[in-house]
């Protein structure tokens, strides 16, 4: 994959994740979770939105090298995260996959 494709697929995954994390289905799931997981779910929602905005505004030529260097981690992260978002089995498993993916994105663009 070239860096433009990695960039687009990463951002597309962040978009899909945001859509899922704001869905009524996810909200119902989180409401039934323990307080600590609820708090973590809110924090991850903010991290995904922030990562999406920062990455969307980033100039591809400035992050091309970091994208290539993290290509495998990004691809693995996308696959694993999408799997969890499709299943929506447990809040904990989804949050773990989200957190892990956003951590890889944070190696490419500086996130708060």
């Amino acid at each position, binding site marked *: 994959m070239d860096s433009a494709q990695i960039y*687009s697929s*990463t951002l597309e995954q962040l978009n899909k994740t945001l*859509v899922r994390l*704001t869905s009524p289905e996810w909200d119902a799931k989180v409401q039934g979770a323990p307080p600590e997981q609820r708090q973590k779910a*809110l924090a991850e929602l*903010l991290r995904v*939105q*922030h990562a999406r*905005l920062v990455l*969307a505004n980033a100039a591809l030529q400035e992050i091309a090298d970091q994208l290539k260097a993290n290509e495998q981690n990004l691809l693995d992260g996308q696959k694993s995260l999408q799997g969890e978002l499709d299943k929506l089995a447990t809040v904990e498993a989804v949050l773990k996959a989200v957190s892990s993916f956003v951590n890889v994105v944070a190696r490419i663009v500086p996130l708060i």
Partner: protein
Amino acid sequence: MEHRDHIPVIGTSGSICRRGSLRPALSAVFFAGLLQIMGGCATARLTQFHNFAQAGTAYVKASQAVLDEAGTAAIEADSLIAQKGRDGLRTVDERREFIVGENQELRKRLLLLREIGRHGRLLQSYFETLAALADPKAPATLGTAAQGIFDSIGRLSPAIKNASLGGVKIQDHIPQAANFVVQAFKVKALENELKARSSDIEREIALQEAAFSVISSTLETDLIVKLQLEETEEVIEPFSTAKDLPRSWAVRREEILRARVAAASARAGQEAASKLRESFVALVENRLSEPSIAGIIAAINSMLDLTEEIKKATTSK
């Protein structure tokens, strides 16, 4: 903002009417023009250029409304996410850092949307100048005016081409250049202008098309996110937990569900720009026809429908 309540009628007089009256006005202008096009007289060519300029003006007004909605949707989605997720940030510093960072990123996006709008308005000025040039009595200075407008467009477009939005670089979405030959026109100033710049102008309309292709995917995500959060807060939560439902509940539910359908049709702007580009080529080749004009009208109406549906869902809370 003007576009949230009114869509200006086509034409250059600057008059304003309610959105609902745009379609009949648009149709009347074009059908009047069509009669002359089919008449094949010398005036017909002049009318073609005037009609195209009016279509360009209508496109720019409608596209400006979509650009406004794209900016609004981005801000509203981000604000709803920030409000919902605020408790996920434990300290004052964390919250401050988050919101300052979001504001900074949103400003960058709004700046790009503004540049795309400016690029569209310059194209509109160019089309109006072209229509004026089609008049045999046009002053000689109009050619210089066209050159000046074109230079301004040329200065603005590299920044748009190199920009990314929603992970997609606008330059990568520019459609292939059309092959066309400028026809001979009786008004030599017009013919010279078209020979000098029509290929470049076709590329600039293609840039609008690419920009709207990219904007539509981002707009779609922002709208879906926003509407999902509103659905949870205003429809599902009250229904599940409130003792009595608010009187407006059913209306609001319908608005949100209908707006979700509109979100999926956010590609109307790209379609309208594409039709405008096709019509420009037809105009230059002196073959602007009824289907070309009908195509622009349909695409512009789709843009208007989209913004109307979105507005309904965002302004009646």
